């Protein structure tokens, strides 16, 4: 996709805080769903593998099907 489109996407406000419109038929437990990416981001540095660069570099698989 064109670069400006990607930029537009990154800057789109919906990327971050928008609440999705609940559809009662589809999301029975939508009340329980909150946008809590922040909760994960708060602890993500403890969860992510240390030394990401080396880890990603060394993650080599053989091709499969």
């Amino acid at each position, binding site marked *: *996709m064109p670069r400006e489109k990607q930029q537009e996407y990154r800057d789109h406000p919906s990327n971050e805080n*928008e609440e999705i419109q609940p559809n009662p038929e589809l999301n029975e437990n939508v009340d329980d769903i*909150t946008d809590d990416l922040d909760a994960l981001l708060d602890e993500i540095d403890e969860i992510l593998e240390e030394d990401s660069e080396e880890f990603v570099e060394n993650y080599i698989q053989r091709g499969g099907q």
Partner: protein
Amino acid sequence: MTVPTIIGTETEFGISVKNAREQDPVAASTLVVNAYKSRNIPSISWDYGQESPMLDARGFTAESEKPPSEDANNSVINDILINGGRYYVDHAHPEYCTPECSNARDLVKYEKAGELILDLSRLAAEQLLLDNQEIIIYKNNTDYKGHSYGSHENYLMSRKIPFPDIVNGLTPFLVTRQIMTGSGKVGAENGADDTEFQISQRADFFEKEVGLSTMVERPLINTRDEPHADSKLYRRLHVIVGDSNMSEFTIYLKVGITAIVLQLIEKRVIGKQFALQDPVAVIKSVSRNLSCKNVYELKDDRKWTAVEIQQAYLELAHKHLSTEERAPIVNDVLEKWEFVLEGLKSDPMSLGHHLDWVIKKKLIDAYIARHGFKWTDPRIRMLDLQYHDLRPDKGLYYRLQKNGHVERILTHEEIVHGVQHPPLDTRAYFRGTCLRKYPNSIHSVSWNSIVFNGSNGFEKIMMERPHFGTQAIIGELLNTCTVDELVDKIRND
């Protein structure tokens, strides 16, 4: 002309051992599969005699070595599961196959049960490693260095449908359904155009429209003709373009809508009307078009977006599925399909609780917004990879699930149930129940046969119809018979 829905998936997992002197994925995969095996039933072989992976649906047989026959390694690398599935070492990956399922919801249950089985294996295998070593298993499809491993779906179809009709009807659907079924990937591979983030893990690896190979020059439509059932009645369509999904909602939608589209092809209401000019180019372009607004040229010069193509398939489903074909679960799949297409049309990012690629994209966007990292930063790729990590405390998808962030199809209890109990309404019931009940009287198993080793010697029971062997048909026999009585009764029926 439609046949009953039967769905199964096969997932190859990525594997890595932290602090290993050198990475040996074959040894690690064998260790993991065997660690689980020792908890299970020993010494039952997989019967490769029933398999013919080199038969081509176009009518010829490809040249290749025969699959391994029975040898000492067979039971080391194979585990037949009491849920009716299979767990084994395929090349350099642990691979899990679900049992045959009659609907999308069961498929989610058994695919997710597979994730638990892999994680239990990991824990058991780690007991055999040095203290500082740790196994990590990823349910993704790439190492970001051009090596892809698959997620395959299998659907039972009527043998009466000529293969070219399947190709024509299915190709436009498969190259566009990734807007719903992609797992998201940072970067590009395999010589495809560079991008920061794309919808699909696998799209970069597809190079031709139709073919038999699954490992090089991968085709959009795979022609493997190995029905694992009565080949006069059935074929097993082997779909290899999909991504491995973490999201229950995504898996449900993926297999649910694909089964419906195949039914429409069987009903002959989808022909060439959606044929695309260049589907191999389209699959890569769709994967890079995060707004889902690009238009693609059909062979008859119409120009449609991926969403519009999917909506055309959905419309045909609404029009042509009969009342009796609309089981509640089919209606539910149709509703979710419609809901997701509407969401993708207005704002794909509104599906950040439903679709893997959007969940992942929003997580990365938020991480970048917080720290200002570039897309090429190794931490971003680590985040992508770790989304698929099967450790409950480290896997980012599981962490989001724990926080109530993702839409679920099942409860945890239902998934746990799937580890040890087969589906009731396919032949997996017969396979799984026999394994539980007569473990010492079974010599070998394949998808469509069991070789019993009772007091009358070896007896092979064929299971050529995947929707037979159900609890309704054979439950009572299995509850009351010894293995010899069972074999006798089936043989004399």
